[in-house]
């Protein structure tokens, strides 16, 4: 009978590898028993609650190779354990990828951004409160969803892509990286692979236990953002109940390349409406060649939410998402 409110860190080992090889070796050896630790802002709650019980933490933030923002031949590379504060304030990111800088600057609270890492923000677990309470729901390996039911409190939950689990992607930076056509660099003891940002996240239909396609022993080490969308016209907005310490009810990250006022190409991605950042490819196609205007925005608003399947309490996300798409397009 677990019938108490836990509040202290249970005994757990801590590894602080100083180099990549040791970290990868640890990740491989410890497998699921080794919890990869970035800034820890989505770690200690789980552990204090004793709702996740790995036997060791592998702290990645001591590895300099996975930190910092560097310019590459085709864009920039951001180490996965770079803090959100650093990203938000980095001149390179600010000037070329203002979309990401903006998103990183409004995550949670200043102190969380000061230690929270990009990798952590991307990989963080969903905020469904039933799941967070430690209930043995589908996402925790159980056989039930408490949120998706006639009376379930599911105001923050999914409009799209639900499959038994109706949780949503909580990240503010994930939609921007999908919009920027970023690539995730994933390393393991066996080598390295690169995954397009869009394919990095996984919905419950394909993997109900995980939010990303990372396998056991794999570590997200860097994010590469190509020049494709550098200096494009950006739009980012997060709508949350509170302006600090809150997760988006819906957020939107959009990038536009325009020529003579007309949209040549666009990326529009919404967060918190699906378990993965939702790219609105139909809308992107529909607005190509159109003026970046209010009329264009209005014309695709309904398309933006086509196929939405609201739950009992998240109907408002439909107009909100439509409005955000309109706002992004009209600029």
């Amino acid at each position, binding site marked *: 009978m677990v019938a108490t409110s836990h509040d202290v860190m249970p005994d757990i080992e801590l590894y602080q590898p100083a180099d990549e090889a040791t970290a990868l*070796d640890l990740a491989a050896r410890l497998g699921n028993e080794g919890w990869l630790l970035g800034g820890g802002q989505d770690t200690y709650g789980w552990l204090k609650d*004793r*709702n996740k019980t790995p036997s060791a933490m592998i*702290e990645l933030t001591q590895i300099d190779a996975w930190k910092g923002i560097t310019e590459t031949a085709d864009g920039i590379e951001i180490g996965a354990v770079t803090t959100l504060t650093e990203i938000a304030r980095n001149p390179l990111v600010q000037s070329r990828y203002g979309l990401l800088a903006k998103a990183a600057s409004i995550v949670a609270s200043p102190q969380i951004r000061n*230690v929270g890492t990009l990798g952590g923000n991307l990989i963080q677990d969903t905020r469904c409160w039933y799941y967070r309470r430690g209930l043995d729901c589908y996402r925790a390996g159980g056989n039930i969803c408490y949120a998706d039911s006639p009376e379930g409190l599911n105001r923050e939950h999914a409009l799209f892509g639900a499959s038994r689990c109706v949780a949503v992607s909580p990240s503010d930076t994930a939609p921007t990286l999908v919009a920027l056509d970023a690539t995730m660099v994933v390393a393991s003891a066996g080598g390295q692979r690169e995954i397009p940002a869009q394919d990095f996240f996984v919905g419950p239909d394909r993997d109900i236990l995980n939010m990303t396609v990372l396998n056991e022993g794999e570590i997200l080490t860097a994010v590469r953002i190509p020049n494709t969308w550098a200096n494009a016209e950006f739009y980012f907005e997060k709508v949350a109940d509170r302006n600090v310490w809150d997760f988006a009810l819906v957020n939107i990250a959009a990038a536009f390349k325009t020529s003579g006022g007309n949209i040549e190409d666009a990326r529009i991605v919404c967060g918190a409406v699906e378990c993965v950042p939702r790219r609105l490819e139909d809308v992107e196609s529909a607005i190509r060649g159109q003026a970046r205007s209010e009329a264009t925005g209005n014309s695709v608003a309904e398309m933006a939410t086509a196929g939405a399947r609201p739950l009992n309490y998240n109907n408002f996300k439909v107009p909100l998402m439509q409005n955000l798409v309109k706002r992004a397009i009209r600029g």
Partner: protein
Amino acid sequence: MNPKLTRRRFIKGVIASGAAATTTAAWYSATGQERPSGFVERLVRINVNGQVRNVDVEPQETLASTLRYKLGLTGTKLGCNRGECGACTVLVNDVPTYACSVLTHSFKNDRIETVEGLESANGDLHPVQQAFVEELAPQCGYCTPGQVMAAVGLLRENPAPTRDEARHALSGNICRCGSYDSYLDGVMRAAELIG
């Protein structure tokens, strides 16, 4: 408890936390493998308020626990212990940080400052503290150490902030009494005292 319980495998695993400390260590010795490098030693030296302190720190120990319960620095408060309130804010290399939601072991080479370390050697209050007194910024006072540290962090980086900049810099600190307005008055006055 049902005696069968320990034999059954819960999907999350039954946690026997008393034994968990040795779980992986035991695994390595049982499998005859060497423990991987990178394993932390418990005895650490940390730099708190300019003093280097030797402390026995458990691997999982949060900085707030070390400060409050090992070093007796109870000015750092636990309001939620979940990084949702800011009462535990300390400075790590001048950067405001939630002490409840970081590990002490992560900061072995860093400069940690708590509210106890702000006064000058002759006992004068730090300008932020002085300004908070003058503006009667605190109400119940429980969030105050955190507010002070966030404000000190801000003023070190930006000695002349606008009220709006101050508001954003302190936004990671909840005050349930709602003294935000008074704290901002305090930060603005502190900037004057410093300037």
